């Protein structure tokens, strides 16, 4: 894995200066009352979305990602900084002249128009039959063929979002902005729609900026993921790179890593000293992170894990069952951190509270933190 973790620089990919460029953007809201301090939602963000790429803005709620999106759309005037497209500064370009589509969390379909009327809204200037053909094409694309004459009120939540996507894609936007388009849906629907969304964006070759707080969604839909916190960008990278090599502990925590193994102590409790993992003794102070639920108890019969896998000695604190599978809560000896670890399927001679066990991190649940410097 040698991902280019940067991507925030203009020399990213594709032709230089092509597509969206955000430079040192600041969005600040005036205080709610007289004398109340202003709230800085976006604090000096620079990011590029080259033509044809899907970039996810990932961050906890309130981190400023939606404000960044609205500033790009032209709905929020930036306090400082610039938003450009193909090198043209957009400061004076009003929303409707930018050609940027926008999909809201709750669709915001026009209640007084039917499905076809909604999808056709942005298709002014086309002859009637070309418009009808385009509407049919888009409804096919989002998996709702034949829905033309349905009224908006009869649609389910998922169908609404599909129509909203079709409506935004119909005028072939230069850039599609998606503001948590799936977060109002239930889990299984969300996963299915994330796949469909990716497919639709790829099929139409749409450049897109996709805001979400869901890590899986970001990884499913986007080519690159930008992690944002408190108004600042922490890291921009392809999903594989991001999950393997989060730049900081904060990024790793947000991505779901729970346990951080101190640098240079990789194999402290390993009798053979064989599991000094990659990067654990990095001079830059890189550390290993293990995802929640990423540990298993090593049974006496289990084969010794490979050299890249951290192994730790631990003391069992309690036993419990989760989703029908037995697991233990144990305290890692070197780090004094509580983790949960799955028991071997056999279950014979399972450890009880107070027992000493050896835990191994699951394959794929380990990340190297801080291995690369962010610009």
């Amino acid at each position, binding site marked *: 894995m040698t991902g280019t973790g940067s991507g925030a620089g203009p020399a990213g*990919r*594709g*032709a230089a200066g*092509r597509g969206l460029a955000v430079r040192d953007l600041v969005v600040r809201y*005036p205080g709610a009352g007289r004398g109340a301090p202003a709230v800085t939602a976006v604090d000096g963000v620079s990011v590029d979305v*080259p*033509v*044809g*790429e899907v970039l996810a803005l990932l961050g906890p709620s309130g981190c400023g990602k939606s404000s960044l999106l609205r500033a790009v*759309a*032209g*709905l929020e*005037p930036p306090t400082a900084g610039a938003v450009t*497209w*193909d*090198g*043209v*500064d*957009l*400061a*004076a*370009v*009003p*929303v*409707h*002249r*930018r*050609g*940027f*589509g*926008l999909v*809201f969390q709750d669709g*915001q379909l*026009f*209640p*007084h128009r039917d499905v076809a009327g909604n999808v056709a*809204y*942005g298709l*002014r200037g086309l002859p009637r039959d070309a418009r009808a053909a385009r509407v049919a094409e888009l409804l096919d694309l989002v998996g709702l063929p034949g829905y033309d004459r349905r009224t908006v009120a009869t649609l389910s939540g998922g169908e609404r979002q599909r129509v909203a996507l079709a*409506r*935004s*894609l119909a*005028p*072939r*936007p*230069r*850039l*599609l*902005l998606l503001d948590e388009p799936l977060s109002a849906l239930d889990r299984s629907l969300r996963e299915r729609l994330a796949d469909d969304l990716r497919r639709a964006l*790829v*099929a*139409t*070759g*749409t*450049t897109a900026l996709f805001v979400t707080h869901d890590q899986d969604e970001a990884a499913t839909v*986007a*080519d*690159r993921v930008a992690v944002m916190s408190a108004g600042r960008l922490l890291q921009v990278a*392809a999903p*594989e790179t991001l999950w393997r090599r989060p730049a900081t502990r904060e990024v790793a925590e947000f991505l779901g890593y729970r346990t951080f193994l101190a640098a240079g102590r990789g194999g402290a409790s390993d009798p053979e000293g064989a599991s000094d993992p990659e990067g654990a003794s990095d001079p830059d102070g890189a550390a290993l992170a293990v995802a929640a639920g990423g540990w298993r108890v090593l049974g006496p019969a289990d084969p010794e894990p490979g050299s890249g896998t951290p192994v730790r000695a631990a003391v069992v604190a309690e036993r419990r069952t989760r989703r029908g599978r037995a697991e233990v809560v144990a305290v890692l000896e070197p780090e004094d951190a509580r983790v949960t670890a799955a028991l071997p399927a056999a279950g014979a001679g399972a450890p009880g509270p107070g027992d000493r066990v050896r835990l191994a991190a699951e394959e794929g649940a380990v990340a190297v933190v801080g291995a690369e410097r962010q610009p």
Partner: protein
Amino acid sequence: MSTATRTPPTGTGRPGAPARPGPAGAGADRPPLRAPSRGWALGRGAAWALAAAVPLAFLGTFFAWPVLSLVGRGFLPDGALDLSGFADVFSRPRTWRIVGLTLAQGAIGTVLSVLLGVPGAYVLYRCRFRGVGALRAFVTVPFVLPTVVVGVAFRALLRENGPLGFLHLDGTFAAIVAALVFFNYAVVVRTVGGLWQRLDPRPEQAARSLGASPARAFWTVTLPALTPAIVSAASLVFLFCATAFGTVLVLGGMRYGTVETEIWIQTTQFLDLRAAAVLSVVQVVVVVAALAVAGRARARRERALSLVAPGAPGSAPARPHWAPSLVTGGVLVLLALPLGALLLGSLRTGDGWGLGHYRALGTTGGRNALTVTVWEALGNSLRIAVDATLLALLVGCLVALVVSRRPRARAARRAVGVLDGAFMLPLGVSAVTVGFGALLTLGHPFGIQTDLRSSGILVPVVQAVVAVPLVVRTVLPVLRAIDPRLREAAGTLGAGPGRVLLGVDAALAARSIGLAVGFAFAVSLGEFGATSFLARPDLPTLPVVIFRLIGQPGADNYGMALAASVVLAVLTAGVMALAERFRGPAGGEL
């Protein structure tokens, strides 16, 4: 600036993703982006300024100027400020009696309306039973009746040989209060009921599950939730009671009056402009205070309540409680009485029953009481109402549009708030003051050669001034309820501000505009306070003719007044019924 079209991406997909399509990709056929000149933003600001300036100029000319110059004549008799008028007017016992009567009338009328209206709101809006729609419509009828008609109907009911003549209530204070409650019951029922039917029933259900009796759940949970709507309705009712003109003038004669009728008497009978000016100021103070209370209550109500769609599961009880049903049933009978008496009276000829009074509507009345026939007056009323409605609609929609925006800049936001309040003032300032002020000042405004007063143009204009607040109150809630992101969605799809206005705001507000048309038309048809000053003698409106007929001696003239009242009542109720059909689900409550 780049003028080349975009080239498709090459190899930018993430590993494993399908290859991106070629030049047919999204956005490829768009013209290159160009930054427009700054003039665009300037033009937009100018358009909004114009949208605010037109109604401001209209109300400034036809409302603020007449009112202020009338008040000015009272206080600046020789060009110098002279406030001795206050001392003089308030040293008269008559003034204190009138102010006392106004407050008593307003207070008693409001308390009775609320006490009777809250059970009505429960039965008619919280419960579901066969015929509830018809009953809701029936309850609204008194409210849309012209005030002169309400007065005439109560006279028909209570006079010596009327159906309830044995009560000897004709010309009493009780009769005036009864008429005011008759008129305002619908305000409470509709305002409180509109909230009640959307109130989330679960807090009340939670109270019941915690062991509260129905009565305790109502007192401790439901009533506090309804309080803002009740306060809002009560202040509106107080406003209507305290400024009642036509009803009080017809029923009270010279013995009972309000500040409003007193202004009319002082100006037309005693020609005492100074007293009229003082009373106008007193009334404005009372009215502004009532409006402020209503506004605060409304703002709280919009903020704090959890509402559900009407008819949500569990929101309607299986059967109404007996006590409010009994009260409401009684009120409905009482509401029907004056209407029935009016209809019966209009059909009663000298010694039997017949349509004689209706046939007489084609004449000018006994001993030529009128200058025109009643049908001609009806024609005048309709023509004037069309003009007034168009004017009120234009001005009111512009006001609603401007006031519904929430600009970013704090100064602009504050200006919008001030406009919101300013445009509500005509609701409270005495229509008599407006009418008389217009008569005094608008002869030759801006150096216009023809005398506006004799051209007849002032009547629809002033009626529009009176109707504008109703139009705004009807359309504004709908515009405010539009999610701003809907406009943003239209903008990102390439719709300019004009198209957003037409395609989103106008399309969604269209149904409420239908209701506003009905309100404006009905108000114009029934307007009496200002019209009585401004209508030309040869072009009187129907309410003016009715008032003149009941002032004339002769049973036939009185019968004609009843018949004309029935015609006017049917017309306004019909207009409102038609408008209600256009009312959208989100139509604003009054």
